[in-house]
């Protein structure tokens, strides 16, 4: 009998790790959004003095790592592991970003769910006694994602209203074995859900069933009442995806519509022409590291279920006509 396992997908920690600090860096568009006051740094230029979008993204990862350590007043040398990932082929933003750090690193890929995945794994490393300090880092960059997944920036193409806008940003979360919270109490690891959606311009609809599946599993495994959390916040479903997830959960008897929120909806204003909302690894990472962590620290939110969502597609799979497999990882975070 596994003493830390609850049900099929959930882990409950015996000594819940503390989120000791976070840091976030975002691009100019995100810096004009409603969450601007919560970010540590807002870039005035997407290239940030680098030669390419990819190098700029790596620089965000590098800088957000040192900011995270700084915000925790911890020497970088006391970090046991870095868990990091991004959207680019072979996760180059993450690897190049931590290249000079000299810290043991696990590269992780979960598309836009990567922040949930790294926090889950990091919390398990700490509760398992394998590490005292783990930094989780993820990033995305509008320009590097556009050229990899869509079209050149200057191509005069229209986006349909269901399309989402990749967030330029990087977030860092430092998990620690000691501290006063907020704590990572439980995690629910998602399984891949694919409802056969093939439209790359409607990822919210592709990911919503995965988010609903993980949230449902979390309540089933833990037996918690549906009103237990102050907020359940998905990663980057966007406006349409959030609505769909709410519908799917309702038809399974889980009515959380009033507390269900989405990072992709929160990060941009309707007026910002981001269509259905933000997306990308940097979306949930910066909204958590910036806004949600601040709310937890100040006690405005005390119990949240953070559910980053990922669409596990590649340009190759899309061109070969495959549907989009999706995943969502839930991280339950509570004060005290």
């Amino acid at each position, binding site marked *: 009998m596994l003493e830390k396992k609850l049900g099929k997908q959930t882990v409950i920690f015996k000594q819940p790790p503390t989120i000791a600090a976070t840091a976030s860096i975002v691009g100019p*568009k995100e810096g*004009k959004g409603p969450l601007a006051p919560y970010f540590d740094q807002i870039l005035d230029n997407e290239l940030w003095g680098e030669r390419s979008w990819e190098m700029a993204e790596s620089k965000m990862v590098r800088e957000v790592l040192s900011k995270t350590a700084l915000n925790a007043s911890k020497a970088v040398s006391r970090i046991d592991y870095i868990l990091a990932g991004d959207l680019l082929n072979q996760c180059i933003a993450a690897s190049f970003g931590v290249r000079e750090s000299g810290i043991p690193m696990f590269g992780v890929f979960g598309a836009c769910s990567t922040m949930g995945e790294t926090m889950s794994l990091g919390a398990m490393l700490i509760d398992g006694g394998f590490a005292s300090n783990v930094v989780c880092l993820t990033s995305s960059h*509008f*320009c590097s994602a556009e050229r990899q997944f869509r079209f050149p920036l*200057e191509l005069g*193409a229209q986006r349909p209203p269901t399309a989402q806008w990749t967030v330029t940003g990087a977030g860092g979360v430092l998990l620690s074995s000691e501290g006063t919270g907020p704590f990572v109490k439980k995690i629910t690891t998602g399984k891949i859900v694919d409802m056969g959606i093939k439209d790359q311009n409607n990822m919210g609809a592709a990911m919503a069933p995965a988010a609903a599946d993980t949230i449902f599993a979390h309540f089933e495994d833990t037996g918690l009442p549906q009103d237990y959390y102050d907020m359940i916040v998905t990663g980057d479903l966007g406006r349409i995806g959030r609505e769909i997830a709410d519908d799917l959960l309702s038809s399974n008897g889980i009515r959380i519509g009033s507390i269900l929120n989405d990072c992709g909806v929160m990060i941009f204003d309707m007026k910002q022409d981001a269509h259905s909302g933000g997306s990308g690894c940097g979306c949930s990472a910066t909204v958590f590291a910036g806004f949600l962590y601040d709310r937890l620290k100040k006690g405005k939110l005390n119990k949240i279920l953070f559910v980053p969502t990922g669409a596990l597609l590649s340009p190759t799979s899309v061109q070969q006509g495959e549907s989009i497999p999706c995943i969502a990882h839930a991280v339950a975070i509570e004060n005290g």
Partner: protein
Amino acid sequence: MQQTIMSYVNAFFIGGLICAVGQVLIDKTKLSAARILVLFVTVGVVLTALGLYQKLLAIGGAGATIPLTGFGYSLAKGAFNDVDKYGLLGAFTGGIRATAAGISAAIFFGYLASVAFKPKPKQ
């Protein structure tokens, strides 16, 4: 003078109409820009071969030559002309011969653009 003004009016309506068809296809079928362009060129070639595009051109002028269907028209017309002059070989030489100026210009200017300009993200 009257004739010149009419040439602008006709170009506007025929050109606008062809683009409007493209927009309906984009919104209704979710075809990407690349597929729309491929479709329009091919349709232009076929309509010209059937002798239909010439009628549109007679009315629309630049309204029919500027859209990519007009590129298809030039390709097909070039192939026909060269077939008439050189026989079967013409099917292979005519299309590119007739469109050489446009294709070469696009490649050369495109190359120069890459040297001179940088892409910029939008807010």
